[in-house]
């Protein structure tokens, strides 16, 4: 399992990384690997505001449909529209080109409550 050392993680397998005061969000390498081939990613509209833990989208693989959740509260300021045509980027580059949304966080302190990479690894290993 690969980890992005610069990101923090939700127990529900989303990662969150601060870039220029925004929070970039995707799903972890572990999450994409357990889903196998991702064939569709449904993302919110830019401008939507959602609370931490609220479902912001849906990731679908050949045999599974999974909700993805806001790691922090805030406004969606950007979505990765390239996933429309190339959802497989979530498999090939979960921390890079497979990013899903950018959030302008309403309460940046929520990031402190997310798991550090090593804690997320322990969480995954514990099953």
């Amino acid at each position, binding site marked *: 399992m690969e980890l992005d050392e610069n990101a923090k993680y939700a127990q529900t397998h989303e990662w969150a990384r601060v870039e220029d005061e925004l929070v970039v969000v995707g799903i972890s390498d572990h999450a994409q690997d357990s889903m196998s081939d991702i064939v569709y990613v449904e993302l919110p509209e830019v401008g939507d505001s959602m609370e931490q833990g609220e479902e912001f989208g849906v990731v679908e693989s*050949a045999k599974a*449909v999974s909700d993805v959740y806001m790691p922090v509260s805030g406004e969606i300021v950007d979505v990765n529209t390239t996933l429309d045509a190339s959802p497989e980027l979530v498999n090939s580059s979960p921390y890079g080109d497979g990013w899903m949304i950018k959030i302008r966080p309403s309460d940046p302190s929520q990031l402190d409550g997310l798991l550090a990479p090593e804690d997320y690894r322990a969480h995954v290993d514990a099953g």
Partner: protein
Amino acid sequence: MADGKNMSETAEEQATELKRTALHDRHVELGARMVEFAGHSMPVLYETGPIEEHHITRRSVGIFDIDHMGQVAVGGPDAVAFLEHIVTSNIAELGEHQSRYGLMLHEHGGVVDDVFVYRLDDHYMVVINADNRDKDIAHMRHHAAPFDVTLEDLSEETYMLAVQGPRAIELLDKLTEHDIDGIERFSSARVELIGVPMVVGRTGYTGEDGVELYFGDQHAHRVWNALLDAGTEHDIEVAPIGLAARDSLRFEPGFALYGHEISDNINPLEARLAWAIDFDKDFVGKAALLAHRDRGVGRKLVTFVLTDKGVPREGYPVLNQDGEEIGVVVTGMYAPTVDAYAGNAVVEAAYAATDTPIQIEIRNKPKAAVVVKRPLYRPAYR
């Protein structure tokens, strides 16, 4: 075949524990993810991933463990008459070593199962779906009473593998002296492959050239490994294929999957399987089908492609342009070769024509779709 007592014991075992095929541990070794399917623990995908597994089968060779499928040997003086009676297609005209698809119907016209009937040397072999095994055998026994036939359930001792893809025959040729390519489509032969005696049927469920193999359970590892090794040795791309890709491979060329396109409650006219029915003979369920035909078929199976983005799934409602519910999705997926979100649905007959705009309701949101010409993928051998 198993008597009533054994049958109920089998059912009990299934309820408490999943059956494992002889290759179970080998699949795990190959990185498979195992899921429950028809009471068996089966590989749904391997490390390769289902989309690439699909593409490998279309471009080279895929091998499939389908030992969960059942086989019933039908013998005795009335074997032909019996099969003519319970299978919709014409069995009488099968020459030795020929085989054919057909359906077993309820008296009310619903489908008990779809089957593949092989005429072998001195008996017939009926290949049935794992999920329907007990039901099928009960159905066959019930209708066998007036006939002088023997029925033997060979499912446990018979191993079944499929080898499918444009290079499947070339691969098999590396493992036998027999002229595999000499076996015509929908024919079979008794062959020794790496010294293992087997029945090789030139058929499959992928839309590609290929075969299905039937042999003794104890040889499963040898045959499976020989197929993989021959690929490596002769530079023929070969991969094991899981149930996910098996589903997309059968969907694109328009093959029915029991429990989806056909079921106890969907009859073959609705499922557009009239081609598998010989109305010139008598068979169980014929009267109901004729009555249904005269009445007019009220709902029909269609294949659709989404023009919006989204993955259709079994059970999603189908709507007309006014948002009224007109049917239900029975199979849905991302179809790799046609590169489309597509599916099959059973809809009111008025909406069954090609190019009819429909909508698929995905998570309460209607998504635009269109009825398309079947099949999405024309089988390579046709």
